[in-house]
């Protein structure tokens, strides 16, 4: 669900002639003038509410994407700025937040699973099935070998200490909860997240 509540931005772009923007210093000739300078790039962009991915101030952001989500169009994020309604950031963003567009489109964004075999010097692209099948196999083999069902005193402890996990504290709570369920269902105790740092 993409909220497009803040439609005034679009309205100002589309129906500018009818609006009263004189306060900002331009009359109706603004459109012509803007066209001469540089077209306002968000006029028909789709707006989506989101939260900045970086720090825990959790600034509200508005993501603008090209395309109206029609069947034949693939959305592409073209601009991100602060959500002026958000009570904490009130539209502002820090240098990281202001540059979110560049992390979304970072050239080092990963696009396909990759695998490096023992002693290998390069990654190679693999299918998801290969990667997940192989990881599940490695996990199960290790778990079956090293799982501790009871301790020396005979107490049931059901823990697995030979494979561990670090969870992502920039993932959503829903992801975190599901991750917790998966890790603990296997008895995993070597389990932490960035809160440890």
């Amino acid at each position: 669900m993409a909220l497009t509540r803040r439609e005034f931005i679009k309205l100002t772009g589309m129906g500018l002639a009818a609006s009263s923007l004189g306060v900002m210093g331009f009359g109706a000739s603004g459109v012509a003038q803007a066209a001469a300078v540089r077209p306002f790039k968000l006029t028909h962009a789709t707006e989506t509410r989101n939260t900045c991915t970086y720090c825990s101030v959790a600034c509200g952001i508005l993501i603008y994407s090209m395309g109206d989500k029609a069947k034949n169009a693939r959305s592409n994020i073209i601009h991100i700025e602060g959500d002026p309604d958000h009570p904490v950031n009130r539209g502002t963003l820090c240098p990281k937040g202001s540059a979110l567009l560049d992390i979304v489109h970072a050239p080092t964004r990963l696009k396909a699973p990759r695998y490096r075999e023992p002693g290998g010097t390069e990654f190679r692209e693999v299918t998801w099935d290969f990667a997940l099948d192989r990881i599940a196999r490695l996990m199960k083999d290790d778990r079956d070998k090293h799982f501790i069902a009871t301790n020396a005193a005979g107490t049931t402890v059901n823990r697995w200490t030979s494979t561990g996990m670090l969870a992502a504290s920039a993932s959503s709570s829903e992801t975190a909860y599901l991750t917790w369920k998966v890790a603990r269902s296997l008895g995993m105790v070597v389990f932490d997240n960035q809160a440890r740092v």
Partner: protein
Amino acid sequence: MTNTWQDIKNANVVIVMGGNAAEAHPCGFKWVIEAKIENGAKLVVVDPRFTRTASVADYYAPIRPGTDIAFLSGVMHYLLTNDKIQHSYVKNYTNASLLVKDEFTFTDGLFSGFNDQTHSYDKGSWDYEIGDDGFAKADDTWQNPRCVINLLKQHVSRYTPEMVSRICGTPQDKFLHICELIAGTSAPDRAMTSLFALGWTQHTVGAQNIRAMAMVQLLLGNIGVAGGGMNALRGHSNIQGLTDIGLLSNQMPGYLNLPTDKETSFDEYMKTRQFKPLRPGQTSYYQNTKKMTVSLMKALFGDAATVDNHWGYDLLPKLDIPLYDIIKAFEMMNNGQMTGYICQGFNPLQAFPDRGKIRAGLSKLKFLVTMDPLDTETSRFWQDFGPQNPARSREIQTEVFQLPTTCFAEENGSLVNSARWLQWHWKAADAPGIAKSDLWIMSGLFQRLRALYQKEGGAFPDALMGMTWKYTDPWEPDPEELAKEMNGKFLADVTDPVTQVTSKAGTLLDGFGQLHDDGSTASGCWIFAGCFTEKGNQMARRDATDPREQGIAPNWAWAWPANRRILYNRASADPEGKAWNPKKPVVEWNGSKWVGIDVPDYVVTQKPSANDGPFIMTVEGQGRLFARNLMAEGPFPEHYEPMESPVVNVLHPKVGPNPVARVFDHDRSNFGKPGDFPYVATTYRLTEHFHYWTKHALINAILQPEEFIEIGEALAKEKGIDQGGWVKVSSKRGEVVCKAYVTKRIKPLMVDGKATHVIGCPIHWGFTGQARKGYGANTLTPSVGDANTQTPEFKAFLVNVEKTSAPVG
């Protein structure tokens, strides 16, 4: 954070110590500026460096890294000797009056009960005198020398301004000026807010740093009030959420603990948790622990959790040691005790201390899985990147999987910010290539493992098979379904005994007050109960209305617990229920109930005369100046030197660093001596970057392109180091070659009569991404953590520095 970001504007004094709010949290810091402009607030910054926060401060004082407890104990000494405490608050809302056992002592740097073989305490004596009625004894007149307040006075009496200056290197006049500014907020209608972050946590005494300031705030009556509080600014966007949901070695959702080997049965487990009040008439909310725990077990295991199997108690793993934290994990890896490691959005090769040890540990794994939107250093630890990552690929036998995930803009879900707000966000575009969500990947692994166990059998599949997984799409559950599961629901028709309203099975819970311990409710994270109710997704609320513009905005998103924005807000009113600060009340007693702009952190109809303390989660109902047995180092904070320190501990030379810090043998031999490494170093973030992510973002790479250290002019001159020239910084664990920023912002500190130089090491550069290649400051840092939390000591260690030339390669 106990308060909200916007609430900072209500402060009269803002103290930033143990953090660098302007640089790490610029958009939150706007409320500090707002406090200055709208409330005439004074901003005080105490930091080893003159930071960008200091650049807008009204008063700045330098401090040697790792000596905050000495500083804050000195502040407490000042407040107590100059009688600058909020008397009524301290008397009524803290445990100042309670009597401590006679056996409790403190001598030569150690509290009673120290065992120097195990480097730990028998904490038996760290408690109150308990009367025959089972309650702690008290002396409201504070005449009894065993009163907490008197023991505290005695404990901090050593921290005179002279001593503070000797230890911290802070000039006495600056220290005293700051004491005066702080003391001004002991007036009932004035408040100070403490903004801190990793500058306090990343020490071997991290938790005690924070405790020291919390005690200052209690003495001043600044907890629970508008513009006050202890505000941990925190790190990642959902670091609060992951803490809340318990993605930590010993945690379960909602701050419930994973059982230990000693808790052999469910009853045993509950016995140590349903805390009975230690003072008459107290709420001690953790009495409800069983309701929370059973509801969690029902959410996790559904029908597999029954009364008969003690709600599936044995389906949970038990811990034999307090923590399998990350330092421990890498110790185990290096000892060949680990096979596999999964790094989901986490880059330990950059983020964890003693990089060489991290690389060696990863090299000993059979397999490593990384799940990340970005090409992380960890996923390429095995690849040769020159001096910045001198790996010998062919000798490393680790199988590595690099799994591409979606990022924030490509998924729905909620994040919990440091003010405990749960905020929902929406997907804006598809992920690049065939990258997948973490939900899809984790579900895929789960389903595959289930299938393998179904087919082949294997070690204890019960928990795996019993884990609830009733999602519309079991291969990629919908975030809303998961949010509802965390919120919780009724599993049976339940009639409320008071209102007589019956809730049908399947109805979503309105709050944790509806939890039951008979298996009729399920809640995956009890503190989140109320976030997604029958009224809809409360986390998606967008009403920014802010009554009296006091920074509460109660209808924006949803805050845990119970949409409460200021924790302990009962303490914002005096014992009679009137606001300490009539201009900025939070909740007040109106004669029949507690009302105000926030959800009361109290039983709404509890009369002030009931004498139920405002800190309803504690057994005393009071804020603790004396921490009983809850801290590893002792009930009072004490100054211990960092593990690597340039000086002896002048208070007790025999007990230098934290006596109960956990140190692995290999790591101990990797600590440097001041003779070889004479300078104090500290690590930190710069505002232009977020950890190790933004070097992948072109704009941020442009804004801070290259690794450097900050060094004072005096030391630079002594060492012949040029502005912008190359230097080699070395510790016992490794070396970094980078540029030097020779600055006036770091000055030598006079510590115990000796000039002590501080070197600042920003942490952001590695060998992947857009910015220039760097060695990473964690090459230098020691592998040792806080004794309570095992948070690594990144903020104070020893290095040497020399002029050099550009690295080759």
